[in-house]
C-alpha cells in the first residue's frame, strides 16, 4: 500500500508541463466534516496542481461528494485548511465570489435553468463578472453570441441550438451544454461530481474525453468516478474510504489489489 492516510498535506505532484514551484490549484489540509456516527471526511489532505487530471474513487458513502462540496466552497469543514490557488477562502463576500468564479463545478444533475435558452444558460456562467445591466439584458436579448458559439463548438454542438430552450434538448445535448457553460465560466479548477453516473457507456466515454481535453497547464480537473475502468486518461487517482484517503498515486500504478482494498473486496460493476 503506497500512501497511508496522510498526516501532512501532500505536496502537489506536478502534472505534465507544470513546474513544481507553482502553488497548488487546490489544497486541502486535515479537512474534517462531521457526519452521523462517523465523520463524512476525516482529516483529508490533498493537493492538486495545474494541468493535473485527478480521479476520485471510492464506494458510495466514502465522502466523495462531501470532498467536492468542500472543494467548491459549498460545504464548510469544521476543521482543517482549504486553499484555492494558494489563498484561503476570503472573508469578504465580494472577494470570495471572485475566488469562486475561478472554480467551476459540473453537477451530476447539471443544474441548468430549464426555462432559459441554451444561450442564456451559457451566459449565466458569466454572471459572476457581469453587473446588473447585463444580467437583466441576458434575459431579454441574445448576448455574446460569438463566444457562446465557440463554447458549443468545443463540445461538438452546433450553433443552431443557441436559441433552443434547454428543456427541449436530449440528454446527451444537455450534458454537453452543461459542460459548455463550464467552459464559458473559464475556471482554473474544474470539479465534477459523478458526471458519468447516469449516462450510457458511449455517452459516458465521450463526455469524459471532452472533460479530459479541457485540462491545460493552467487548469486542473478533480472528478469523482464510480467506475475504475475509466481511469485511463487520468494522471492521478485518489482512493477515499470511510472519509479517509486510502491511496493517492499515479493512475497507471493502481493495481487490482488497491481497488479490492478500496471497495472492500468486491469490485463495482464495470459499467451500467
Amino acid at each position: 500500500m503506497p500512501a497511508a492516510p496522510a498526516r501532512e498535506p501532500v505536496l502537489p505532484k506536478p502534472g505534465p508541463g507544470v513546474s513544481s514551484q507553482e502553488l497548488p490549484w487546490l489544497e486541502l489540509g486535515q479537512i474534517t466534516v462531521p457526519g452521523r456516527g462517523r465523520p463524512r471526511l476525516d482529516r483529508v489532505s490533498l493537493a492538486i496542481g495545474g494541468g493535473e487530471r485527478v480521479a476520485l474513487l471510492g464506494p458510495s458513502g466514502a465522502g466523495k461528494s462531501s470532498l467536492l462540496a468542500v472543494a467548491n466552497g459549498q460545504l464548510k469543514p469544521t476543521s482543517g485548511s482549504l486553499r484555492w490557488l494558494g489563498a484561503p477562502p476570503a472573508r469578504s463576500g465580494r472577494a470570495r465570489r471572485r475566488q469562486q468564479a475561478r472554480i467551476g463545478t459540473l453537477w451530476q444533475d447539471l443544474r441548468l435553468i430549464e426555462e432559459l435558452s441554451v444561450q442564456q444558460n451559457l451566459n449565466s456562467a458569466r454572471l459572476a463578472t457581469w453587473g446588473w445591466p447585463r444580467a437583466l439584458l441576458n434575459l431579454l436579448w441574445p448576448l455574446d453570441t460569438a463566444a457562446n458559439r465557440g463554447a458549443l463548438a468545443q463540445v461538438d454542438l452546433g450553433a443552431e441550438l443557441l436559441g433552443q430552450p434547454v428543456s427541449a434538448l436530449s440528454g446527451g445535448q444537455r450534458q454537453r451544454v452543461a459542460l459548455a457553460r463550464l467552459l464559458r465560466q473559464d475556471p482554473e479548477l474544474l470539479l465534477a461530481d459523478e458526471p458519468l453516473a447516469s449516462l450510457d457507456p458511449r455517452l459516458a466515454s465521450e463526455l469524459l474525453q471532452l472533460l479530459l481535453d479541457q485540462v491545460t497547464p493552467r487548469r486542473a480537473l478533480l472528478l469523482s468516478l464510480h467506475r475504475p475502468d475509466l481511469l485511463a486518461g487520468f494522471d492521478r487517482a485518489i482512493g477515499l474510504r470511510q472519509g479517509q484517503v486510502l491511496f493517492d498515486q499515479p493512475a497507471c500504478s493502481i493495481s487490482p489489489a488497491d481497488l479490492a482494498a478500496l471497495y472492500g473486496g468486491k469490485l463495482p460493476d464495470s459499467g451500467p
Partner: protein
Amino acid sequence: MVAPALVLIPVLVLLPGLVHGGGVDLLKEFLQAAFSPSLDPLVLGSTVSGLGITVGIALLGWAASGLMGLALALASSRQIWSSCCGQTWPANLLRRLLAVPRSIHELLWGLLLLQLIGLQPAVAIAAIAIPYAALVARVLSDQIDALPSGALAALRCAGVAAPQALVTALGPPLLPGLLSYGGYRLECALRSATLLGVFGLGGLGTELKLCLQSLEFHELWTGLWLLLAVMLLLETGLAGLRRRWLMPRRLGLGGLTFTPLGPESGTGTRGKGQTALPDDLGRRGRELVLALVVLGPLLVWLARAMGVQPLALLHWQPLPNLGGSSWASVLALPWPQLVGSTLLLTLVAAGLAVGLAPLLLLVIAPWPWARPLLQLTWALARLWPPPLSALLLLLLLKPGLVTAALALGFHNLGILGRLLLEASDDYQAPAEIALQGAGVGPRLALFYGRFSGLARSYLAYGAYRSDVMLRESVVVGLVGAAGLGTQLLESLSSFAWDQLLGLLVVYALLTLVGEDLSDRARLRLLSPA
C-alpha cells in the same frame, strides 16, 4: 364531486317557507328588463363614467397590490432569505404577520378606511391593495419556495452575487405562474371594485345599487351589460395573453401554487416549454418589458384623472374614544350564534357553488345549445356582486341565512363553473370516448370518463374557494341574520368601535382557521393517492 350539491335538499325544503308574496311580479319585471336596457344618453353617460371609475380603481388597486405583493413575496420567501443571509426566521415572521391583512376582506378594509379617512378615491384603491398584496405575497412566496434550488445553488457556487443569481435562476421559472396569477388577480380586482361601489365607495357599484333600490331595472341592466362586456373583454384578453406567453391555466396553477411543484405541474410547464419556438423566451421577456413600459404611464395618468391622492391616506380622522367604552357590551354579543351562523352560511354557499357547477354541466351534457346559455349565466353570476344578488333575492325571499347563502353561492358558482369548464375542455379524456363508444349516454360518459379525472383538482380548488367564501360572508351580511357579517355592518354603522374591534378579531381568527383547514384539505386532495 357532485355530492356537495346535497345541500340543495334542505335549501329547497326551506325555500317555500321563505317566499313572500308580491315579489314574483317584480322579479319578472327585472328579467324582462334584461332585453330592454335603457339607452337614454344621460343614463349611458353616467354608467360609462361609473364604469370608468370602477375599472380605474380595479387597475390601480391591482397594480399597487402587485408591486407591494411582489416585494413582500420576495421578503417572505425562505429560499431567498437563506440564499442571501443564510437565515430563514425573518421570512417565517413576515409570513405570520401577513396573515392579518389577508384575513380581513377588502370590503371591511374599505369600510374601515372610509371611517378613518373619509371618502377618497385612494380609499377604495387601498382597500383592494392591502389584502390583495398580502395574498399575492403568500402565493408567490410559496411558489418561489417550491422552485427547485439546484440551479440557484450552482450559480451561487460559481461566484455569482445573490441578487443576480436569484433573478436568473428563479425569475424565468417563476414568470408563468406570476403572470397567470397576476391576470387572475386583475379579474378579482374588477369584481372587488364593483363590490366596493355597492357599499358607497364610488364607481359603477354605487349606481347599480341605487338603480336596484329604486327598482329602475332598465337602467340597472344598462350598467350590467356594460360591466359584462368589460369583464368578458378582460377575461378573453387575459386568456389570449396567457396563451401567447405560454402560461399554465388556472386550475393548473392550482397545482403549481398549492402543492410544492407536484409531478403534474412540473411536467405541465416543461411540456409547454418544449413546444416553444427558438428564441421565444427572449421575445416574451421583451414583450413583457414593453407592456410594463406602457402600463406605468397609463396608471399614472389614470391616477391623476381620478384625482387619487395617496397622501390623503395618511390624514386620519380622530377616532372616537375607545378606552372609555364598556367591554361588557362586546362580551354581551351572542358569539356562539354569530360564529355558528357564519360557518353554516359558508357551508351552504360552498355546497351550492361546488356541487352545482358539475351538476349543471351534467344536466346540459346532451344539449349543445344549452352550453352558451350556461356560460352567460355564469358570467352574470361572476360580475353580479353578491350583496346585489342578495338585495334582488329580497324581492322574493325573506331576509335570512338561506337568502345570504344563495347570493354568495350563486356568485361563486359563476367562478367555479367557468374554471371547471375551462379545465374540462383542456382535459384529454380517452375514457369518455371509450365509454361513448360502448353506448353509454353522454351524461354518464362525462361523469365517469371526464369528471373522475378532474375531481381531485376541482375539489382542491373548491376547498380554496370555500375559504374565500368564509372571508366573503361579510359582504352578504346586509340581508340580516347572516352571522358575523351582519353584526359587523351594524356595529360599523352605529360607530360601536369596541364591538367592531372584537368582531374583527374573531372574524380574522375564524378566517385563519378556515384557511388552515382548506390548505390541509387541498394538500390531501392534491397529494398523489
